[in-house]
């Protein structure tokens, strides 16, 4: 297991976080969220990676062949589905925000405070 994928994952997480914090546009913000989410994909996949391992499909290979961990693939799949849902919701809120506030800038969406 190499250190590099985890460094990249941490970098993606922090870069996405910076994007979310400084975002001036809700669509941009949704994309930054997906960048953060990709950090979790990468972390999961690198956890299960085995050097020279084959795909974990044992239909036509010997059952003792070294393969990468299929559990993390399943987790990543679930993760992707979830992310798609959240992105869809945030984008829907962005559309609605344009209709109501006439803006998709979080700086201008201010009706709650205190």
């Amino acid at each position, binding site marked *: 297991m190499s250190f590099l994928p985890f460094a990249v994952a941490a970098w993606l997480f922090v870069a996405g976080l910076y994007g979310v914090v400084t975002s001036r546009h809700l669509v941009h*913000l949704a994309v930054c969220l997906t960048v953060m989410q990709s950090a979790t994909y990468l972390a999961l996949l690198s956890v299960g990676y085995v050097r020279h391992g084959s795909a974990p499909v044992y239909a036509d290979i010997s059952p003792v062949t070294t393969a990468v961990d299929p559990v993390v693939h399943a987790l990543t799949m679930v993760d992707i589905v979830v992310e798609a849902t959240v992105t869809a919701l945030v984008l829907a809120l962005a559309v609605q925000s344009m209709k109501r506030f006439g803006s998709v800038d979080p700086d201008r969406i201010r009706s709650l405070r205190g």
Partner: protein
Amino acid sequence: MSVHQLTPLPVVIPLLTAAAIVITSFAPRRVHDVMATGAGLASAVLCAVLLAHAGERPIVEWLAGWHPHQGVAVGIALTVDQLGAGAALLAAVVLTAALVYSWTYFDDEVDVMVCALMLVLGAGLIGICLVGDLFTMIVFFVLTTVAAIGLTAVENEHSGPLQGAINFAVVNSIAGFSLLFGAALVYGRTGALNLAQVGMALGQHHADALVGVGLALLVFGLLTKAGAAPFHFWLPDAQAVAPTPVSAVFAGAMAPVALFGVARLLATAFAPSLASHESALRTVLVGVGAFTALLTAIACAEQRHIKRMLAFATASQVGAMLCGIGLLGDDALAGAALTAAGFGLAIAAMFGASGVLIRRFSSTDEFELRGCGRDLPLTTTTFVIGALVVASVPPAATFYGTWLIAEGARDVGYDWLPVVLALSAALTAGTILRVAARVFAGWGADAPAEPAVASEDRSQEQSSQEEEGDGATSPRPPRVLAIVPLLLVVAAVVLGAIPGFADSVQSGAAHFRDVHSYTGAVLAGRAPHYAAPSMPSLGAAPWLYAGATVLGALAVAAAGLRGRRLWPMPLVDGLRAAHSGHVGDYVVWWTFGMAALGGLVLWAVAG
């Protein structure tokens, strides 16, 4: 049919019913109401059955029969013990009450979606309480997030709900990512996702930096959903603008269930490896809890928007419950569970009662509503009893909860903690009493002369109603809106009065924290050997404690009615400025909290 086979049903029934409701969206709304309420009720009954059967030993159900192979978990387990079943029951009861409340609360066209999403939210919450698997827990966590975003944004034609939903969506998604990241690290280390298996694998080595980072990501991810400071900023926004029954579920079920997740992780997956670091970890968790309780109690006292005030009261009690969990003792955990039961029901009830005011007077502003509620006896009663439950008056369940948390704090030398918790409970209960006295009796001073700050606080809930005529009084809302909250708040009191209830929660908490019995029951199917719990006896201290809290609450209410402020203005201005409503600011606070508190956890675990 054994009770094992019932285990998945409290989650499966609401989910399938939600799907059925969406498929039959052409049917009249009464059909949906009956389906949704029936599903909620069925879930609650099943949770009660599970609770009754989980006393002897945890119910462990391996889905699709994938039993552990030579002590290694290969399948996905549902693990139900008393505390888990109890938390699931609380969630199911609050959900069912909110669904009954929704019968008359919503317009026809939104009702279908609300019913379906509420069931999905409820299924997710119940699921978190019943799982024995890290990843399944995260899946349910995210399921609740997605459903809750939709529910917050139901009234998305107004700016307040839209902003609340955006803040909720972004902050809680990031919390979900942090959970996933933490789970990836833990899985990378242990190769296991089952909580018992993870605990065993982590326990074989000394806790190191990786365990610390994984723990911080998981615990603070869950605490974001619970609303612990400084992760709580989304909570008042979302709870203030969500439709009232939804706010009731957020406050009464979602916050306690998220805390339950924290307790479960600490008691299973991380318990063996952290056994030698307990005191440092305790300092961090109790520090966060006490800080949350006090800070949000002060913010609560500064609110004039009733639902926002109740939201801050929720966060304050979350802090108290987090102290109970963070003390890492059997008694204190039982205290947190009892507080969750009593306060969860009471806060859901008070949100419901505030819905009566919204429906009738199209306002949630304390000063606008002054004296308006004189002819609402049921709603008045709900608020007053609710305030007393928050002030931990006997025989409410919170009385025993507060006592046990104080007992647990004294055992480990945290003598200051009960004082802080009593102070924050007095502040929140006093604020609720102040609002009740002003709205239902017309007592107290008029609006302060500085409405410039406060007028911005009002949510859009009232503007959403203003189309029907500004300030116009609507006809008396249906009685069910007043009766359901009253029943809930009475239940919070009656629960504590049931003989032996507090004792059984105490033994449940002791079993919950017995990681060897848990691991044996899950992985080897062994019958647990529980040590007989030592029951502290109820001395004079808790009565004095409750008395002091009530007196403090009355003093706070009196000061509030006269418009007196009990702390310096810069603190208030600072609090208001921090709750800016800007999603970027909230994420900065989240990042700061994760970095600072994560660092402390790392120091506690690996230092």
